[in-house]
């Protein structure tokens, strides 16, 4: 335990899962495990980030992720500033790099950025002196989501290696899917993607996954069923014909779930569209659904990320 809490992390930023290896991931998960325990105690506060400044830079609205990062920083004793840039500087014509330079001058220790453009955190990381955490960029990656999913799975199943994980829904536009595919592949799980042909990238198989367009096939013997949120603007006419058709063929209900293993774990990054991608009967069944636990592990993972990325090597 002492090692976990003191060894430095091999990376300066957390921009994507792809550049981590199994050791990095295990280090993050192990530390997060201890923070998960801490969060369940009465006195949740620590001082490992005391005196440090964390800026949450959200170009896209997100209550959940922003709150989770804010809570994580505060539990570790950091000074946390939330900046919703979308409504202020951008409108005044300030570019991302302008913002980065301005923030950098304030000497933060860690910047958490969410942006609607893929690659924005990478650009930011080249312009600032502090650690940058990708809080979700476009359709590219959402690394802390994949890490919290991995932690949830590991706690429930005891391992990641060898598990069959079916990621279902809008793969094409999902940063959650891309991060999870990368992480699960690194950790030796067997990943499947399941979705309509219009929402699965044509070259999906090249990401190291098996591709299915029928839930019954994709869910067969799955240990984990990871549902993705379908954005309503994608529902009408363009990618899928209607909510009722989507739910009929790709919404997770008890009937489709029978194809998975009897002890399959259901996950969803939230917020859920009930009756679109998941039936309430399943979402609310605590015996099979890990959705609340994912939220809890989110705080723990983000604490671990903030902690490790602000440690100085040597």
């Amino acid at each position, binding site marked *: 335990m002492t090692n976990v809490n003191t060894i430095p992390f091999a990376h300066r930023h957390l921009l994507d899962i792809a550049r981590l290896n199994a050791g990095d991931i295990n280090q993050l998960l192990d530390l997060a495990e201890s923070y998960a325990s801490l969060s369940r105690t009465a006195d949740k506060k620590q001082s490992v980030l005391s005196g440090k400044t964390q800026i949450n830079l959200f170009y896209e609205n997100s209550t959940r992720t922003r709150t989770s990062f804010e809570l994580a920083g505060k539990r570790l004793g950091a000074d946390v500033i939330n900046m919703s840039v979308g409504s202020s500087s951008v409108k005044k014509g300030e570019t991302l790099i302008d913002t980065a330079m301005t923030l950098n001058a304030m000497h933060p220790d860690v910047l958490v950025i969410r942006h609607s453009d893929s690659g924005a955190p990478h650009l930011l990381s080249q312009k600032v002196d502090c650690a940058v955490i990708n809080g979700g960029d476009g359709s590219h990656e959402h690394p802390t989501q994949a890490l919290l999913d991995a932690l949830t799975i590991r706690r429930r199943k005891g391992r990641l290696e060898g598990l069959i994980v079916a990621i279902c829904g809008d793969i094409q536009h999902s940063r959650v899917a891309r991060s999870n595919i990368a992480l699960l592949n690194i950790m030796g799980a067997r990943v499947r993607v399941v979705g*309509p*042909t*219009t929402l699965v990238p*044509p070259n999906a198989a090249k990401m190291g996954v098996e591709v299915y*367009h*029928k839930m019954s096939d994709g869910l067969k013997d799955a240990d984990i069923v990871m549902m993705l949120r379908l954005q309503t603007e994608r529902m*009408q*006419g*363009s*990618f*899928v*014909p*209607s909510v*009722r*058709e989507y739910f*009929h*063929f790709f919404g997770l209900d008890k009937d489709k779930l029978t194809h998975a293993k009897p002890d399959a774990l259901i996950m969803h990054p939230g917020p859920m569209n009930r009756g679109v991608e998941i039936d309430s009967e399943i979402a609310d069944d605590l015996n099979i659904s890990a959705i609340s636990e994912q939220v809890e592990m989110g705080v723990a993972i983000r604490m671990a990320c903030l902690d490790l990325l602000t440690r100085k090597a040597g």
Partner: protein
Amino acid sequence: MTLPVHALVNARLLDPATSTDEMGGLLIQDGKILDWGSHIRNEGLPEQATIEDCQGFCLAPGLVDAHAYLCEPGKEHRETMATAGMAAAAGGVTTMNAFPATEPVIDDPALVEMVSRRAKNTCAVNVCITGALTKGLLGAEMAEFGLLAQAGVVAISDGQFAIGNINLMRRALAYASMFDLPIIVHAEEPALASGGVMTGGRTATFMGLKSIPNCSEAILVERDIRLVEMTGARWHAAHLSTADALDTIRRAKDKGLPVTAGTAPHYHALNDLELGEYRTFARVSPPLREEEQRLAVIEALKDGTLDVISSQHLPQSADSKRVPFAQAKPGVIGLETMLPVSLRLYHNKDIELLTLLHRMTVAPAKLLGLDAGRLKNGAAADIILFDPEKPWQVDGDALKSKSKNTAFDGHLLQGRVMKTFVDGTVVFEL
């Protein structure tokens, strides 16, 4: 108790699926084909079989028409299931594929069930249904292909409307491929065809009508084939009429793409001179082309580039045809004349009889995934008896369709259906 057997003997048996062309007979029992072949003769028939001498006429599978507008519900003043059924039976069509341009449009699974039920109750021949590609045929949002497929549609199409939005077409193809549904397209680039009423060329110039260039067809075919290459979806061009588009189909087929194409009798039998005197009854979409394009269509039917001949039966009321040419609605009826008009190709020695029948039986059945269009023991006895030589003159008013907008009114044709059976029951007799 043994069910009665009906024996059709002394017939020229024609089955394109097995390349059969021989004298023989066929036995019908309980609405199904019990047996058929050269061994069925007057002797050795089951006891108490009723025997019918076919007098050497051709006995063939009933035609499968891949493309017809039945107008019910909503446009019953033009055609009903019942009148279309009578026209089909008289033309030797035992299965027809109803297109979704009804009111309301067939873009909802509940409507598929209603139309199927209505067809079963009132139509003399089998009806299968093509669902809409876009909601309301408006070209904006994909219809619910999956639910339509579960309700029983055999294909997806927006009928006479081409899809101008390439992204929509891309997604429609990708989405339809999940359900193995063919998408049937009207191959005419909408912007190029906009406002045009006849094909570009000498005749249009003389007549002073706004024309549609030939390339409007090839451009859309080229575009869609690129998308087929990307998505792997099944794609069928409903009615091709130009050499360039046919060349594109040839290349796509050479590449092994899941592409098929069809045409209609008026494209291989008529050219744009038919529009002389501003004959609105010959106004169709795409328009009748110049002679060299017509010859290219025949060539493509011969070499298999064109898989299917369908009627493109599109009833229009007299009111919508008896107007100045540019205001007339496009479309002709074709169920009753489909076979006799196409037999011209046989009489002109352009195409073998079996090949010609193949384009109207096995090929459309395969396109639509139907167990029809061939003589097969145990299959429904959907068969026709026709005399390929019988001469007759088309009288539009005497045709059985409710609308009379035939382009062949007054034409002399050679060949006529004598009798049509559906499920072993006679539904038409001349």
